[in-house]
């Protein structure tokens, strides 16, 4: 029985100007999975997410979502289809209130009709945001801003959520909390693809992982298998 695929990235190359950031990258995600992309700075992880989100158009190859080629689409069309990205560095709108940030997350028409319901869910996941809803986003702590960024990403009713370096610069206790919420989001049926520099963390939270180096996927598989790979042990655990 063929298994259905939610997202399928096939052999893409992508450039930043004349610099090639992705080389023949392929990846596939099934509905309900939680998948990590691991790699050092500059390995092309963020570019891969940006290519899926339509911010960077691949020069070669295809990206399919639910069987539809999305590589020529614009970012707003891709959000409409059900992919949302929580970008690196949180990128909340600093001079908008928390509530306004969340509302902007439901900009596409489909999500607008379910806004009240989604807002309620976000407040359930992050009760502190309800308390802070009238505050400007720039006045929040880094952790709270990350909650706004994740909440904002949920407001568009995504089927697939891309998270870029969610834990960067946050205290470990907060990171634990965010990953707990991530598991909860997944239990609600949202597929998750996350980028993380912390290898140990990735290999605990994800089911499968892709390891990237200088714009290429060098290893991929179930995390249990990857943990046993000699290369991974040497490179990331110093064993």
């Amino acid at each position, binding site marked *: 029985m063929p298994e259905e695929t939610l997202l399928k990235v096939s052999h893409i190359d992508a450039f930043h100007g004349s610099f090639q950031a992705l080389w023949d990258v392929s990846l596939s995600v099934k509905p309900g999975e939680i998948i990590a992309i691991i790699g050092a700075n500059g390995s092309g992880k963020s570019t891969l997410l940006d290519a899926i*989100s*339509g*911010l960077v158009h691949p020069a070669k190859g295809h990206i399919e979502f639910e069987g539809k080629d999305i590589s020529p689409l*614009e*970012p*707003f069309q891709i*959000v*409409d289809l059900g992919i*949302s*990205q929580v*970008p690196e560095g949180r*990128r*909340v*709108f*600093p*001079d*908008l209130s928390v509530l*306004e940030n969340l*509302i*902007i*997350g439901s*900009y*596409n028409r489909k*999500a607008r009709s379910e806004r009240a319901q989604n807002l309620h869910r976000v407040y359930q996941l992050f009760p502190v945001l309800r308390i802070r809803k009238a505050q400007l986003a720039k006045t929040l702590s880094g952790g709270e801003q990350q909650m706004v960024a994740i909440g*904002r*990403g949920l407001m*568009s009713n995504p089927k697939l959520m891309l998270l870029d370096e969610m834990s960067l610069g946050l205290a470990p206790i907060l990171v634990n909390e965010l990953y707990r919420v991530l598991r909860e989001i997944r239990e609600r049926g949202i597929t998750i693809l996350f980028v993380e520099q912390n290898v140990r963390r990735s290999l605990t939270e994800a089911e499968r992982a892709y390891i990237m180096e200088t714009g290429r996927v060098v290893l991929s598989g179930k995390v249990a298998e990857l943990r046993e790979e000699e290369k991974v042990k040497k490179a990331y655990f110093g064993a």
Partner: protein
Amino acid sequence: MTFLADLSMPIVMGILLGGLYAVIALGLSLIFGVVKEINIAHGDLVILGSYFGYVAMTIIGIDPILSLLIGMPLLFGIGFAIQKYLLNRAFKISMDATLIIAFGISIILQNTYQLIWTPFPRGLTTSYSLKSFSAGPIRLPLVYLLNFIVAIVVMLFLREFLRRTYLGKAIRAAAQDRKAAHLMGINTDRVYAFTFAIATALAAIAGVFLGLTFPFTPISGMPFLIIALGVVVLGGLGSIAGTFVGGIAFGLAQTLGGHFFGVAAQMLVAYTMVLVVLAVIPRGIFGR
């Protein structure tokens, strides 16, 4: 005592004149704050508003302020088209390209005005545009007061629009972080077209009140663009309140400069002040 009485005239005059400058600069400030384009054609679009008022008054015979009911939607449409079909495309090449295209639009507009309305100065002379009012010891043209009231009303409207409406929130979001706005599903091209359209509709208002206050010619857009640039720089780029304060500061510098150094030096004084402010607080009075 007489010294103070002498001074009250240029001060009141400067503040009121600043209201008109703020209305003229508002569209420029909005486009700069959101799209990050310097719309060199803004002054000429303001003058388009003036000529529209002129046509409405002389040919159709309606009051120029009333004619804004048609003039604003018309210029809104023109602005939307300019951003959608010209600037959004240029934007993808480089910011310089938008500057050059806006410059091209400016030249085309000026020459079109020459062809249609000749270089002869026109004005919007109505029953009320020549009236004056007294405030204590001084008498001032009524239009100046009108300009100032219009400035406040327009700013409040724009502020509430940006705060309360969904499009307004999207405009602010796109201004604050373009990439994040993309990721939220905002079609930024469309948001920019609406922003430019709103700015051009504001230019229609500015044009009519400018025409009620001063005579204008096909090339009047340029000096008013330069004033507007000064106002925006003074107030802080992209801030509505800043544009208002910048307008008043510019108006005051001009009238007080004229009072102390003679009319010939008034613009020199105003621009010198812009330079000094730029040197001391480069972000402007309300700049972030």
